[in-house]
């Protein structure tokens, strides 16, 4: 067990080094990532023309808290290039080495995902906290300590779910030459019904109920709602059950697609 863990610890360490090789690329990506926040802030300020107005039960501060929380969640949990890297490794024949070694590819990629998340979070933590500090008067922080614990758990599950969904999408590379287009289509759906564009409870109620049955709200909307204390106590447990269910579902799906894909796979490259 210890030797298995140490194996994937080394993978994570290599992931850290790889990220630093292209540090300028990485930093620019982080910097440009702040632009949509600015757009979002001004757009919602215009929507809340009257500062005391309410839009779908939100006050302006509540809405800005949602988007600031989203930035923090994104930096902690969202896979950035993992899906494209996995697809490239399948297409380029680089997975050959994993078929011959006692390394589980899913665990290998999961280790790399966490190392990249670690670097991303460490690098962005200063700008993110600077933004949170500047916009502090718009923020509504949770008061209760237990809310923080639940929010952290939901965040951890959100990261796992996002990784597994990205992993499953990338495995399409066993059958499709270029997976970018399907990935971007899934990404657009995630954006809309995952709560990346706006809080999902702004949707009409019936549509909202349907959306909550899909995996997408458990990527962004659910952890953010927990953090902003918008989930009623009696719905907290069912939310976590759904989040765990979707994690297990995509883990099983990943195993199943991999086993089917390997049978279809033609090893190319040396």
């Amino acid at each position: 067990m210890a030797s298995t863990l140490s194996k994937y610890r080394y993978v994570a360490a290599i992931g850290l080094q790889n990220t630093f090789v292209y540090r300028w690329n990485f930093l620019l990506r982080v910097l440009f990532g702040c632009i949509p926040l600015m757009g979002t802030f001004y757009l919602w300020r215009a929507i809340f023309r009257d500062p005391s107005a309410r839009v779908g039960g939100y006050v302006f501060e509540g809405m800005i808290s949602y988007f600031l929380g989203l930035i923090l969640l994104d930096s902690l949990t969202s896979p950035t290039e993992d899906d494209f890297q996995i697809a490239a490794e399948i297409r380029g024949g680089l997975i050959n080495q994993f078929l011959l070694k006692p390394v589980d590819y899913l665990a290998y990629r999961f280790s790399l995902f966490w190392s990249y998340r670690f670097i991303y979070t460490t690098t962005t933590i200063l700008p993110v906290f600077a933004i949170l500090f500047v916009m502090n008067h718009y923020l509504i922080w949770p008061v209760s300590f237990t809310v923080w614990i639940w929010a952290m758990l939901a965040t951890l599950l959100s990261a796992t779910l996002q990784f597994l969904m990205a992993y499953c999408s990338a495995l399409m590379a066993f059958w499709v030459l270029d997976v970018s287009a399907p990935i971007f289509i899934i990404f657009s759906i995630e954006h809309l019904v995952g709560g990346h564009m706006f809080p999902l409870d702004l949707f009409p109620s019936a549509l909202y109920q349907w959306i909550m049955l899909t995996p997408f709200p458990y990527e962004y909307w659910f952890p953010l709602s927990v953090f902003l204390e918008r989930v009623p106590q009696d719905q907290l447990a069912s939310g976590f059950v759904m989040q765990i269910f979707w994690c297990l579902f995509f883990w099983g799906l990943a195993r199943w697609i991999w086993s089917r894909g390997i049978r279809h796979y033609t090893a190319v490259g040396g």
Partner: protein
Amino acid sequence: MFRYLKLALALFRYSLMREMMFKINFLLWIVVDLAWFAVQLALIEVVYAHVPEVAGWRKYEMILLIGTSQLVQQTFQFLFMVNCIELPENVRTGNLDFILLQPANSQFLVSIRKFDLGALINGTVALGIIVYAGWKLNLHPGMAQLALFAGLVFNGASIHYALMLAIVTLSFWIVRAQGLVYGYYNLFQIARIPREAFRGGVKIFFTFGLPMLVVANYPAAVLARGLWGWNAVWVFGLAGILLALTSLWFRFGLRFYTSASS
């Protein structure tokens, strides 16, 4: 001039043949852009279910703005975007050598080597949305107004081109500059927001520094809000200055290009 037109036509034919080799992929990328466009329209639908106007723009004026932003973006994508995206990779791998050795202007070849034909279809959809919004707003634009709108759409695409080429030119110094390319996608989001929503230094910055608030707001305002005369025409000058500066910057960057091939 005529020679370059012939060259562009030959490249267009080549792009068409290449796209038709991967038909499914071609169609899927059209769906990608349509999906993102639909996401933007869904945001408008949801927002206007709760408020009557945003920064003085009513619902169908806003849809007209989003449609115009999409039209400008698709015009830019049709002509330039793929080529700009490929520049950092061509610099990194040394493939730029093959372009530089051609007996034609390097910036021209770098900028319109490939046409994104899917953008033509998505641009047509955007145009349909603009016409629909115009019909809902009961607009009856004259020929001069339509000509100014079309000119400003191309002007917006030129601004996108100038800025993106300026950004990817940094790849002559930065080894892997894909982060820059992804970054530009974020700027498109600013272009879809009404200019009136911004204030102070940020508004000035996104009007004159990174003029995202010019590319779609001005043509949309010509149709929806009767913008006319010097108030609209000055942005052609802004695009001209940006294009000239970018050209100088690109040529300067090219001097630092060291082929990566062996």
